[in-house]
């Protein structure tokens, strides 16, 4: 019980997210209407992805300080899980964008930042697969992971400043959804949903690490 309470919590929170997310009351905002419910899925994917990528870079740093194979496995599996959530985030985002903005892809700093993030991490996996020796692969990909992560974070921090404002709520000049952050009905589902998805990501990560250790 002590060990897996967080898995139960993840199941409970996500069940709540799905039920309350589809059945609960939401404010009717012009332009998005009922698709506002995607907030509980789309936005949470990015939170989960960023958490996974942070874990990945922390274990890459750890690997470079003690050269233990365990840390490399955690780093690569965290990046894998992060990419999974990144792809889900892009897919849910594209569906939402098609509805709210009329196009699958719009020129928006957040979309471009996400696309760059995926490119960077796909390149990370290509780099890994092109190295044969285990130790060398772990070391070189850890170096790239740290280098790329810092530049990626820098990129998503400065990119919004370079463009004429985002279509996403929060930092755009003419945000379509000003009541977004205020509504109580949204908040009581949104915050538990973030925690739930992050816990699910951790669970997937845990399983993948255990699987990799068995194969070793």
């Amino acid at each position, binding site marked *: 019980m002590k060990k897996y309470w967080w898995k139960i919590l993840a199941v409970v929170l996500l069940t709540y997210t799905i039920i309350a997310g589809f059945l609960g009351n939401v404010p009717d905002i012009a332009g998005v209407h009922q698709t506002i419910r995607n907030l509980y899925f789309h936005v949470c994917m990015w939170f989960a992805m960023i958490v996974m990528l942070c874990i990945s870079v922390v274990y890459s740093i750890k690997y470079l300080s003690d050269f233990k194979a365990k840390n490399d496995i955690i780093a690569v599996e965290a990046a894998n899980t992060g990419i999974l959530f990144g792809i889900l985030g892009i897919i849910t985002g594209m569906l939402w964008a098609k509805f709210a903005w009329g196009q699958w892809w719009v020129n928006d700093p957040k979309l471009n930042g996400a696309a760059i993030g995926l490119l960077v991490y796909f390149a990370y996996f*290509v780099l890994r697969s092109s190295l044969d020796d285990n130790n060398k692969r772990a070391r070189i990909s850890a170096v790239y992971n740290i280098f790329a992560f810092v530049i990626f974070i820098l990129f998503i921090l400065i990119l919004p400043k370079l463009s004429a404002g985002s279509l996403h709520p929060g930092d755009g000049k003419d945000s379509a959804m000003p009541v977004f952050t205020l509504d109580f009905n949204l908040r009581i589902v949104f915050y538990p949903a973030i925690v739930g998805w992050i816990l699910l990501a951790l669970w997937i990560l845990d399983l993948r690490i255990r699987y990799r250790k068995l194969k070793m």
Partner: protein
Amino acid sequence: MLTKEIKSLVSKDIRFELRQRSAINGILLYVVAIVFICYLSFLRVNIIDGQTWNALYWTILMFASMNAVSRTFVNENPNRQFYFFTLASPQAIILSKIFYNAILVFILSMLSYFFYIIFMGNKAQNELMFIVCVALGSIGISAILTFVSAISSRTNNNFTLMAILGFPLMLPLLLILMKLSEFAITGTDWLTALIYFLLIFLIDAIVLVLALILFPYLWHD
């Protein structure tokens, strides 16, 4: 001590380059050829305005510098690399390579600017700002690409990997540089552009520090 090591390593690189001219001549010709191709292909549709000029310039420079920098760690023979390893500290090696490549990228950018002026006209109203922007940019471009070429030189499929690792990492710097050179093209005053200069400084500094910290892990086998 470090500055002395860097100085001798850079002068070694320059002498090597001048001894076998074919490589450097190839890179210079590459730039001229691309500019000419762009001139011919864009002339037909007649859309060379300031924005297109700018976007094209940085795209050309990105490919040209990718081509120039990708040779950094590859054409060095492994035994000689091992010899340098016993002579100099890894920090001196990476800094000297970055410094040398920055000079190379700057020369390339000035050359393509020159041919740009000849073929497509000079769109930059504030030439000094444009040149300062290019100079600061070449430090950052060189630092990122040199580090990426150090990573990709450790693998088998070198050039492809260099491109896929390098392009996404160059984008943040490139976007700020494009913005800044747009200011130079429209003739915006220095004060408005200041924040972007600071941003480029920041990126240059972060990339240099990262390269310094991480390079010893790559170098050492």
